[in-house]
């Protein structure tokens, strides 16, 4: 194979992707003395030079409002990617609605993410054992807990005690102190708790204390600026201000950006020899070799890469036939109300650490176990409501001085509960290679099929009743349209929690990888992203991606040093 320009010199491990999983792999492997090459499909990105933390939205076109070019707002950190990528389409089966968010930048989605990092609990790893649906993971909470402990300390997580069924607490020393709640959050706490709905400090990947480091020192949040723009002081965790610079400082990491990996190239003895990639700027194809290949390209791209490798029509590492199947996303729905008691309330600074300070964890495990609910898996609510421009729906149809007064009155008087719920894998939801469509590099594209089941629809209906009960307890005016749950749910992929397309398992016949992400069929191809998830609990996945990537990377380092992959 020819050495690629900018990628010369021998490497031990090729890592495809530089987001949460790729960043963790690079950090752990280089620290262990392993020479790594990251191939990132997107462009190079330097938050220090590019993030505009402080400009008012009024400096931006359209007051910063999201557009198809910048879906989450003008100043949002995602650059050169999004719901659509120029010349890189994906397709859908008839009747499917699936959104695929693809950042094309160093650091991937960690530059713009939700930062809500709950741990999965014991039930979440054994869902099949609990309700007979989906599949169990080959590992349990106790296997992952030590890695959660370490990841929380590595990335910096603030939060408080939970003390609830299936919501594990962190041991002492893992978490930084959580911020104080804001008034709307305190009010939701009072109302929800009076209805038996628990409210707790959220676990959030934002520093509330400084995190010194020789290479990548990070500062405590200064309680201002929107996190999704990126954070030049490093308070929010993103690989571009933490794991990647730390890995580079070892001298054992090289990064090639604009490198769109097209396939895994096989060598002798059933092992991968390396990968082939396309230089996005020149269109040139290159091949690079290594002793092992880590796939951390994101659930969809990792599945696509394997499906486009190996045997035509079957893909690589797919003897189980499960590759591309078991795709899930989180359910999503938003509820809001105008609370008269909050109208005209005393002003103070509610910026805080950016997102929610508290949240509502799922609380109905006992009812679910007893069969009293018409859906099998849980959800949580993320909490919103701040001072600022009131929602249109919270303003009366008036003009003149009445409108000005109405805005003053309604500012800070709207609260919101945003649902995120678990989806159970179903046979109608998967991705596969579209035999008829290629991207501008000639790489066959993914075709998605997506369907919610009754479990997800009933779950959203239950969530709406719960949210509205809280609003009513506060004498709130509900601002939500009265529509069937199917019509208030987000589309598949829209929550950007896609998982499961190369799930782990105990049995090679029904899973693609083992609990360390190693593919059953090719022992030097290791998956470290959300593709390996055996289920997609409602708890936001990034902390678990990081914990499993840490676990898998240490295992890979051990195998490399023991000569197992010589």
């Amino acid at each position: 194979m020819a050495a690629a320009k900018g990628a010369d010199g021998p490497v031990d491990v090729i890592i495809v992707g530089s987001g949460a999983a790729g960043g963790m792999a690079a950090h752990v492997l280089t620290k262990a003395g392993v020479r790594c090459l990251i191939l990132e499909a997107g462009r190079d990105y330097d938050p220090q030079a590019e993030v505009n933390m402080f400009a008012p939205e009024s400096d931006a076109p359209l007051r910063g409002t999201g557009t198809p070019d910048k879906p989450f707002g003008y100043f949002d950190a995602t650059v050169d990617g999004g719901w659509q990528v120029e010349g890189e389409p994906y397709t859908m089966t008839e009747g499917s609605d699936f959104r695929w968010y693809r950042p094309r930048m160093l650091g991937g989605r960690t530059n713009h993410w939700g930062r809500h990092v709950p741990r999965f609990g014991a039930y979440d790893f054994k869902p099949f054992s609990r309700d007979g649906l989906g599949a169990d993971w080959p590992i349990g909470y106790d296997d992952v807990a030590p890695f959660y402990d370490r990841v929380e300390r590595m990335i910096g997580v603030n939060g408080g005690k939970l003390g609830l069924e299936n919501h594990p607490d962190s041991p002492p020393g893992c978490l930084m102190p959580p911020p104080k709640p804001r008034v709307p959050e305190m009010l939701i706490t009072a109302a929800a708790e009076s209805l038996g709905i628990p409210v707790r400090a959220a676990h959030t990947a934002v520093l509330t204390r400084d995190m010194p480091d020789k290479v990548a020192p990070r500062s405590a949040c200064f309680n201002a600026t929107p996190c999704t723009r990126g954070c030049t002081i490093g308070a929010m965790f993103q690989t571009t201000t933490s794991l990647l610079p730390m890995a580079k400082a070892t001298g054992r990491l090289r990064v090639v950006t604009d490198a769109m990996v097209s396939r895994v190239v096989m060598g002798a003895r059933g092992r991968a020899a390396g990968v082939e990639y396309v230089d996005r700027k020149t269109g040139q194809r290159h091949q690079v070799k290594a002793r092992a290949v880590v796939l951390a390209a994101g659930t969809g791209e990792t599945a696509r890469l394997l499906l486009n490798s190996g045997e035509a029509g079957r893909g690589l590492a797919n003897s189980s036939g499960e590759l591309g199947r078991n795709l899930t996303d989180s359910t999503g729905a938003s509820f809001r109300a105008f609370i008269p008691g909050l109208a005209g309330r005393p002003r103070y600074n509610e910026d805080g650490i950016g997102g929610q300070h508290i949240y509502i964890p799922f609380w109905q495990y006992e009812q679910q176990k007893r069969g009293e609910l018409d859906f099998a898996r849980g959800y949580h609510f993320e909490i919103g409501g701040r001072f600022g421009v009131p929602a249109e729906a919270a303003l009366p149809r008036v003009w003149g001085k009445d409108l000005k007064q109405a805005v003053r009155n309604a500012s800070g008087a709207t609260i919101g509960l945003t649902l995120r719920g678990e989806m159970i894998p179903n046979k109608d939801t998967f991705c596969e290679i579209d035999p008829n469509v290629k991207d501008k590099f000639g790489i066959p594209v993914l075709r998605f099929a997506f369907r919610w089941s009754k479990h997800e629809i009933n779950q959203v209906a239950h969530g709406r009743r719960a949210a509205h009960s809280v609003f009513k307890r506060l004498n709130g005016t509900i601002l939500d349209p009265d529509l069937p749950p199917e019509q208030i749910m987000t589309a598949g992929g829209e929550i950007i929690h896609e998982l499961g397309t190369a799930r782990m398992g105990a049995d090679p016949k029904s899973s693609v990888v083992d609990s360390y992400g190693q593919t059953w069929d090719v022992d030097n191809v290791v998956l470290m992203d959300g593709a390996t998830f055996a289920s997609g609990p409602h708890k936001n996945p990034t902390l678990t991606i990081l914990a499993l990537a840490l676990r898998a990377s240490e295992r890979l380092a051990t195998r490399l040093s023991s000569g197992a992959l010589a």
Partner: protein
Amino acid sequence: MTFTRRTTLQWLATATALSLANRGVAAAAAPQATGAPPPFKVVGWPASIAPMPAAPGYGRDPDLTAPKVPWPLTLTKAQRATVDMLGDMILPADAASPGAGTLGVGAFIDEWISAPYPQQQDDRGKIIAGLTWLDAQSRVLHGGAFTAATAAQRATLLDALTVETPSAAMAQPVAFMDRLRNLFVLGFYSLPEGKADMGYIGDQPTEGPYPGPTPEAQAHFAALLTTLKLPPLPSPSQA
């Protein structure tokens, strides 16, 4: 590092900043077209609006440190004058802040309806048609364009355009005004003058732990719990 002020469009969403839903401005619920007709004969809604010439967007990878609007503004002088006048009526000057037209929010309306994106082009159709309708209605009633009518005549028209339940003939004109009014709210209250009017406090980096609600805000909260017959929280700082 120099700290400048910033605003956040997260305000618009009111839901959590964690929500990754599109932060575009949601369309207001359509009014039910079953209300009483206005005190005048309603002229017809313009049949069609000429499409805007192709214009460039800012692309997927604009320079975030030097934001600029790459598309040309498209309102005519007369249309812009009407928009400015409407701005000073919808959000008029008072002791707290200037009028929206005087403050220049009309330029934001022009920027919005001239943007080459689907939502903005949809709004363009509504607003250009609405401005055309407004002049036609004004001519029938008062023999001149909207800007030439008296303050009382203009107020009567704006009243008819700002009703909860319009008549069938007024459904589209009222939807036009809904959109324009909400764009003025967005454009006005995202400016420093609008934020000051709302008493907004924020955009200020504060070192150390987040201070949380002030004693005054705590007192209001405690009183609200009493009103709602809710038990106090274990401690003010505890969630």
